[in-house]
């Protein structure tokens, strides 16, 4: 039997004011630390982007001989992608790059993905001497096409995205492989740009590129024709968020060789090095980040010189979810992916040979990206009772809100500044003002709901409510495939 009076006495006995004051300092220190960290990353990114634009804004050098461009295997993992897969492969066939192959991996789709690829490209079964260098679920058939000799199709039992990618790596013939999501749109020169760091520095093992929001843009024949802002507010929020995440979230870490994420939507890797670390880890939802963290860990342990680089060129465009349910699923999956990547590689943090990634990037990810939402949600939750019980004056609450929103807007505006310094994809003044408006507006609701989803993901992960890695499905209708039409005209 619980003695409630004893519990009440205990609660009354707690020095509340002391606790609140201490917590206040903790929250303040955390708030200052996270914003300072982001600002520092931001300023590193400014220098990186100025340098990058200086060296690469024009093609100064004579065209490199084609035989010096390494051939690339493009891997497209596909699970129930019948709406987009054929046009994605068609657009990849139009890439401006001397030598590449496309390996579509059908991961046990239950729709018509397999048949559509077979029909569209005239694929026939091919007696490939398959090499199982990384263990995967059984590969049932491999197809090739005499009409499209660059395209191959691997049909395998369902095993998740990581497993599909591993099967693709097993089939890849070339020393570099590029991972592309089936619903992404690339620029014609994407591959050349993202392969360039491998030519500039032979110690490069992986390169990531910027992923941009496709909503609102016009696509023609599988290539981007016109860039515009999305109409949906939710997609606009994500556009500003992507700018922040890619232009300083990742570009800031790259010069320190501490980049921990290469988006699963688009990245190029040195195949042998990936096989050496065992390929993608199956059963995770954040296989992209997990791979990069393991690469760092393994190469640091072996004390090999290496570079994991980020190219700021806008090379890959993807449709952002425009309904809350899909967005929630995506964000929760990302947060879980973060947790699953950090936990098994904890040994990298503060490791003697950890370098910038072990001493800066890993703690940053853990403290601000993983624990951040927990602290933020506790902060919001604490405000309500504190305000109602008069433990925090309204004035303090408003001032803190003012500073917090102000910092959020400043960071987003800095991302817009980086965009202006570099590629100015949204060149009209009204577009910039609209994005600035979105940067303010996202602080009232969008940011908080995102934190809540991420908080939920942390809790779910801690209690292991999810059983295994799976394909994250987001409602997309692939409407960008239709000629000259805007994605949102079809209600995505």
């Amino acid at each position, binding site marked *: 039997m619980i003695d409630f009076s004893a519990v009440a006495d205990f609660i009354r006995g707690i020095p509340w004011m002391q606790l609140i004051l201490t917590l206040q300092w903790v929250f303040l220190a955390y708030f200052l630390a996270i914003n300072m960290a982001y600002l520092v990353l931001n300023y590193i990114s400014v220098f990186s982007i100025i340098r990058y634009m200086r060296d690469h804004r024009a093609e100064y050098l*004579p065209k490199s001989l084609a035989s010096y461009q390494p051939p690339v295997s493009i891997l497209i993992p596909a699970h129930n992608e019948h709406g987009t897969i054929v046009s994605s492969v068609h657009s990849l066939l139009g890439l401006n790059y001397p030598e590449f192959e496309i390996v579509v991996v059908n991961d046990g789709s239950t729709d018509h993905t397999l048949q559509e690829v077979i029909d569209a490209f005239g694929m026939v079964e091919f007696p490939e*001497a398959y090499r199982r260098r990384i263990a995967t679920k059984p590969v049932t058939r491999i197809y090739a096409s*005499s009409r499209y000799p660059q395209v191959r199709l691997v049909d395998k039992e369902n095993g998740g995205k990581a497993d599909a990618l591993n099967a693709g790596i097993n089939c890849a013939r070339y020393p570099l492989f590029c991972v592309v999501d089936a619903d992404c749109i690339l620029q014609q020169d994407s591959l050349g740009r993202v392969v360039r760091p491998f030519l500039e520095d032979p110690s490069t093992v992986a390169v990531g590129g910027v992923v941009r929001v496709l909503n609102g843009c016009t696509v023609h024949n599988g290539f981007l024709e016109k860039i515009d802002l999305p109409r949906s507010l939710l997609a606009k929020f994500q556009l500003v968020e992507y700018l922040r995440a890619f232009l300083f979230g990742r570009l800031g870490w790259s010069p320190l060789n501490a980049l921990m994420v290469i988006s699963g939507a688009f990245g190029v890797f040195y195949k042998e090095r990936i096989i050496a670390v065992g390929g993608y880890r199956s059963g995770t939802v954040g296989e992209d980040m997990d791979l990069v963290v393991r690469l760092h860990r393994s190469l640091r342990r072996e004390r090999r010189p290496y570079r994991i680089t980020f190219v700021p060129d806008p090379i890959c465009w993807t449709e952002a979810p425009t309904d809350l349910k899909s967005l929630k699923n995506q964000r929760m999956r990302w947060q879980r992916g973060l947790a699953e990547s950090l936990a098994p590689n904890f040994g990298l943090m503060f490791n003697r040979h950890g370098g910038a990634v072990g001493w800066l990037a890993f703690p940053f990810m853990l403290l601000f990206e993983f624990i951040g939402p927990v602290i933020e949600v506790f902060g919001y939750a604490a405000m309500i009772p504190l305000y109602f019980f008069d433990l925090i004056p309204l*004035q303090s609450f408003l001032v803190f809100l003012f500073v917090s929103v102000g910092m959020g*807007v400043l960071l987003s505006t800095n991302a817009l500044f980086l965009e*202006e310094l570099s590629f100015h994809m949204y060149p009209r003044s009204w577009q*910039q*003002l609209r994005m600035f408006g979105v940067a303010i507006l996202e602080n009232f609701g969008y940011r908080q709901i995102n934190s809540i989803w991420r908080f939920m993901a942390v809790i779910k992960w801690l209690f292991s409510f999810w059983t295994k890695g799976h394909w994250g499905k987001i409602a997309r209708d692939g409407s960008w495939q239709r000629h000259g039409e805007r994605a949102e005209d079809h209600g995505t």
Partner: protein
Amino acid sequence: MESLIGTDPKIVFAFWLGVAVAAMTLLMLVVIIVMRQVVLHRERVHARAVAFWSTILVAEPGFETGPVPPLPNRDLSGFLQVWNEVHEPLHGATTAHLGRVAREVGLEQRLYRHLGHGGFHAQLVAIIALGHIQNSESFHRVEHFIDDKNPIVSLCAARALMQIDPKRAVSKFVPQIVRRGDWSQGSVASILHEVGADQVTRELSEATLQANAQIAPRLIRFLASVSPEAAAPIIRNTLLSSKDERLISTCLQVMTHRDDLDCVRPLLAHPRWHVRMQAAVTLGRLGVPGDEQRLIAILSDEQWWVRYRAAQALRNLSFISVDDMLRIQQAQADGYARDIIRHVLAEQTMGVAA
């Protein structure tokens, strides 16, 4: 503001921090908008200049003798873009018409000013343009840029010097190829091809002979691409004497002489698989009757790539037909060997070989 009087200093600090952040944000927004306007203005001026000077520099035959208008400073960047673009397909050569335009607008003097005082972009464009003008007097002005720390600047300077005076420039260019690991190899090869084998073979051969195992593969590849004849004795010597697997691999990739096959055959048993694989590829390219038996022997190699390239090499031998391949396949006791031949034959039928 009065409401802050007597407030907790922490709140006052936070308030002023918020004000500072808001001010910085607004300042940033203004900077973005002003920058945009400036860039838009510059782009408009540049596009106008490009359109105007394109009509003059890319003049129709017969209209090349007309008067050349003065070149205002605001048009210079557009002019240089057209100037460099027009010259690219000419591979270093210039025309009488372009030379006349350059003289009449006083291009060289303006480019020298850019070299001395311009920013990164202006300097580079000037170096490239001076290379196209090919006036030997500008050699010494461009010369020191070949030592620039930035690989793009130094490589552009190397190309310009090779265009201006290849005989003089080659003694500066080749040592830099040896020294600069950060130069884009594709661009170096492109410059070597532009100037031609006659100008670079001697220096490149000497440098290759003196290079250590770290640098030699790079140089052998360049030399073989501009002059296979000059590369042949060096390749032979390397295959006979070198223990460096990377160097051996490179030599196998670029060798073109059948006479040297005796140095290749023993390498089919090399302990490193990539050397065995390259040896198989070389035999497929240059092999003679009798070599098929050597290739058949490695169809059961433990490495997939060695088996695959050996099967491809067999298929590539002119004296081995598809029927021969089928017979070889049937004669194999090893399942891996049979599978790889089936794979390669299917590739051949479908035209999908890697």
